[in-house]
């Protein structure tokens, strides 16, 4: 992806960042002018990329490391820090609430990510064909992504309200007893996953669609000549062709699911931070927030933040390994054919 910044024939000496005065003309040109040229050649690329790295160091790297340092202390908001070593981490391992939050994060993640990506694949496949009003549909499926989490979660919380919600009313018409969407564990997790799925399906569908557009059309034509059904084409051509994209969306969705915060918080209303009266839908992010801003134990909150970071790094690593192995497969396949 990098662009080589080879300036041609000393043209960019004029743009040397040092702003040094031009050397007088009668001096030996091979002296410091050529040195200036060399410095320019070596330093300019660094100057170009410096802004990003400076911003990243200030707002990315420093907080990360500072959080790591905090996680080894006992520290209260506005109080003095007190060294604790790995105490915060051992407490986490012993804490039921941490394991509960980890399990909830995992189950809500699975319930929301799997259907979301499958639906996105199907939608993208349908939109990939020539249908009337294709542009309208493509915009429409992105609409949920454009709404704010807060607004979406509020609306869904109303829909899922046990006493007054529309969903339980509809179930009532069919003769099903009201489901306790907020108090019972699985209904609550399904309800929260619904919000996530509703919001992100269109977004992922568009990414898939972009990848599908790049699949050569003659593959489909050839398959159609061979008499393959649309479904068969989807399974045998579309999916293998966009495998890297699928892997990418899986990783991004997994990261999103690990950091899930807004939806359960707003869905739970007043009980949102604790994830319900029995912590039945408290995610890791909520636990971190609760530790930091309700309890005021910033050290423990930082420890949770770091555990989440390690989790995400592990996920990233697995993704790397998977994509490597799939590329190897491709290469082998290409060598064979």
């Amino acid at each position, binding site marked *: 992806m990098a662009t080589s910044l080879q300036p041609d024939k000393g043209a*960019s000496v004029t743009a040397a960042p040092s702003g040094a005065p031009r050397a007088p003309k009668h001096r030996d040109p091979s002296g410091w002018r050529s040195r200036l040229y060399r410095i320019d050649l070596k330093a300019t690329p660094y100057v170009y990329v410096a802004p990003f790295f400076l911003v990243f160091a200030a707002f990315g790297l420093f907080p990360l490391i500072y959080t790591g340092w905090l996680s080894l202390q*006992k520290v209260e908001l506005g*109080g003095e820090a007190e060294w604790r070593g790995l105490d915060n981490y051992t407490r986490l391992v012993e804490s039921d609430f941490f394991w509960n939050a980890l399990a909830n994060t995992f189950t809500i993640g699975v319930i929301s990510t799997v259907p979301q990506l499958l639906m996105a694949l199907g939608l993208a496949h349908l939109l990939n064909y020539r249908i009337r009003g294709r542009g309208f549909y493509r915009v429409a499926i992105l609409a949920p992504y454009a709404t704010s989490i807060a607004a979406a979660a509020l609306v869904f919380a109303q829909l899922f309200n046990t006493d007054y919600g529309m969903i339980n009313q509809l179930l009532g018409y069919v003769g099903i007893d009201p489901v306790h969407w907020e108090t019972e564990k699985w209904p609550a997790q399904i309800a929260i996953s619904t919000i996530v799925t509703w919001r992100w399906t269109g977004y992922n569908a568009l990414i898939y669609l972009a990848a599908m557009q790049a699949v050569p059309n003659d593959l489909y034509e050839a398959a159609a000549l061979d008499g393959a059904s649309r479904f068969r084409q989807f399974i045998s051509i579309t999916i293998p062709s966009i495998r890297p994209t699928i892997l990418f969306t899986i990783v991004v969705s997994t990261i999103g699911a690990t950091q899930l915060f807004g939806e359960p918080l707003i869905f739970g209303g007043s009980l949102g931070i604790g994830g319900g009266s029995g912590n039945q839908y408290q995610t890791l992010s909520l636990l971190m927030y609760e530790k930091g801003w*309700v309890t005021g134990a910033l050290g423990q909150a930082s420890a949770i933040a770091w555990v989440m970071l390690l989790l995400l790094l592990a996920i990233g690593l697995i993704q790397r390994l998977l994509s490597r192995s799939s590329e190897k497969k491709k290469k082998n396949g290409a060598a064979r054919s």
Partner: protein
Amino acid sequence: MRITSGDVPRRRRAVTLTTAGLLSLGLLVTGCGGSGGEEGDDGSGGGTITLRVGTFGSFGFDNKTGAKLYAEYEKLNPGIKIEETNVADGQKYWDAMKLRLSQGSGLADIQAIEVGYIAEATGEAMAGKFVDLGKTEGVDTSKFLDWKVKQATAPSGATIALGTDIGPMGICYRKDLFQKAGLPTDREEVGKLWAGDWAKFLEQGEKYKAKAPAGTAFHDSASGLFNAVVSSQPDQYSGEDGKLRWESSLGVMKAWDTAVKAAQDGLTAKLRQFDEKGTWNAAFKNSKFATVACPSWMTGIIKDQAGPANKGKWDIAQAPVPANWGGSFLAVPKAGKHTAEAAKLAAWLTAPEQQAKVFAVNGNIPSTTEGLKSEAVQNAQPEYFPGVPVGKIYSEAAQQIKPAPIGRWDGQVKTFLTDNGILDIETRGTSPEKAWNNVKKLVDDKIDQ
């Protein structure tokens, strides 16, 4: 990022790029050097002093919907200007204030403190950061109810805050529903039904349930009942030393048992009070319950939530055991620029005459004995409760309050006991033993650092 060149010649591109790079660097340097700290009006401009008052919820001082006390004070003291900053959520307000207090900047000249946090404010970490108002000119702490002064007194003997209001409690009940269920409707008689014991209150609940109008419960919320019972006990979450002793506290146990029984016998509408989704609020409108524990400030909530359709249906009886639930204070942080003027204003705002004015508009029951006795309070007659001597009921209840020791963690333990303990039993059918152990685990995990 691949740079698409279009048709710009190479040299121009290099120049542009370098310039862009340098520009963004320059922006960065200046962007980080933004000035910190807020420079408000330092009061020297034109001889006027601006005092800022930080509040949460509804204190009823302001010129818009309150008793217009600020305008009055400005008239009495030319050269003083008052600004109020208000945060709706008490917990968020407190967290922000703590942070500012620890940094000594960004504070208002007067900061309100809720009774749930006053023990934290009088604790060793914070008490020294507030002005001792006991020594302020015009403050006579003997005018306040004894226990209210005690709550705001630091171990050093300094009075760090002055009480604004208190929360004496009654039981609000629906006359029409009581009648349908065959219970008396006169407030004296109703009060006698359960006088002296919360167990009697539950007995009436069983009676109500036997003949309850369809779709109604006796009480709104088991966790609300828990709060009401604890508020009536001399022994609550913390000991005299301010240390947590909730597990062995007789008051907490009594409240727990009462609330669990109410939940398990189906005497409650299974609601959580103040829930953000408005289910509790909607239940007022839809007449889902016949009684609610009723500190003085609750009457305002009933008026707003039950709405005009239910006007005149509510009445107020005495609580089984006298109780105080809620109330606030005003404190003056030492970090302020005009602590002397701020202390004077705080003293004036909490004086009996002003407390009576606030009550007339906002229903906050005064924390001074004089204020409680004043005509304005005694004869108060809110429109929403026609014929109910609201002022008399609450000022009588206020005289009988027996204060309990409070501690720094009370608010949090209360939240765990209600939101994670009682509510879990009530809405999810968890066994009381399991719920109690869960609360224990929560307290160990989230309070002891």
